[in-house]
């Protein structure tokens, strides 16, 4: 039996939070919720996560900016790079590139299906496990 993975949901939309919470708990993952980029940074400084699901458009500090800060925090502390999957509201041309340029690893454009998030989670948590 593999250990439950610890996932951070950075998402300001309450319904999306509920859906993700419901899905992750059904799938046996442990998780924390952050409602904006600032809260996400705070959670990341307190806990280690196996994966971050990051909404790009959040109040206070958006997902792109939060990711840049996380990457520089990781570089300063010389810690492992946590995979970040972007959740974006609209797949505009160039959005994917913006996310990757900000330091995100993968990208999911809305409207997505729960199964697609599951796939991303299994890809990123698995590939992380294989590196060890």
């Amino acid at each position, binding site marked *: 039996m593999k250990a439950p993975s610890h996932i951070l949901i950075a998402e300001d*939309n309450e*319904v999306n939070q509920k*859906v993700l919470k*419901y899905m992750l708990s*059904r799938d046996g993952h442990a998780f924390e919720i952050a409602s904006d980029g600032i809260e996400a940074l705070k959670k990341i400084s307190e806990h280690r996560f196996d994966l971050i699901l990051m909404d790009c458009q959040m109040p206070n500090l958006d997902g792109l900016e939060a990711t840049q800060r996380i990457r520089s925090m990781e570089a300063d502390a010389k810690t492992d790079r946590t995979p970040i999957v972007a959740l974006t509201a609209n797949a505009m041309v160039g959005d994917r590139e913006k996310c990757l340029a900000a330091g995100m690893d993968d990208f999911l454009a809305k*409207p997505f299906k*729960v199964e697609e998030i599951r796939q991303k989670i299994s890809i990123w948590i698995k590939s992380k496990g294989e590196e060890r």
Partner: protein
Amino acid sequence: MKKSKRSFRVLIVDDCPDDISRPYMLTSQLGCEVALALDGRQALSSIITSKFDLVILDWNMPVMSGSDFLLSAREQGVGLNVVVHSGSRLSREELDAASDYGVVDFWPKPMGPVEILKRIKTIRERLGR
């Protein structure tokens, strides 16, 4: 004094967070108690363990589709009031089967908030809730 009523319980079954969002917000705003299921199988276990006044059901879902869910619910002997919330048109046979299985309304996706509110109110009136 007004007699306090049990809240109107709604189960939303859909595998797309964006499609859950609007009915979720609106039914919550109307004071309904709202639960979620992300596929037909989860929905089936929810309706077996608790009672719902209304199920808002997506048709095309992985694991167990909307039509298989209705079939299984009937096999379990669970009576339901169901709204089919679907992005695709249903075939004549599916429509016929659906109305036998407690389907009270069809909502094509995407449906605007005003229309959803109106339809929920109509369904509640019809159900006497």
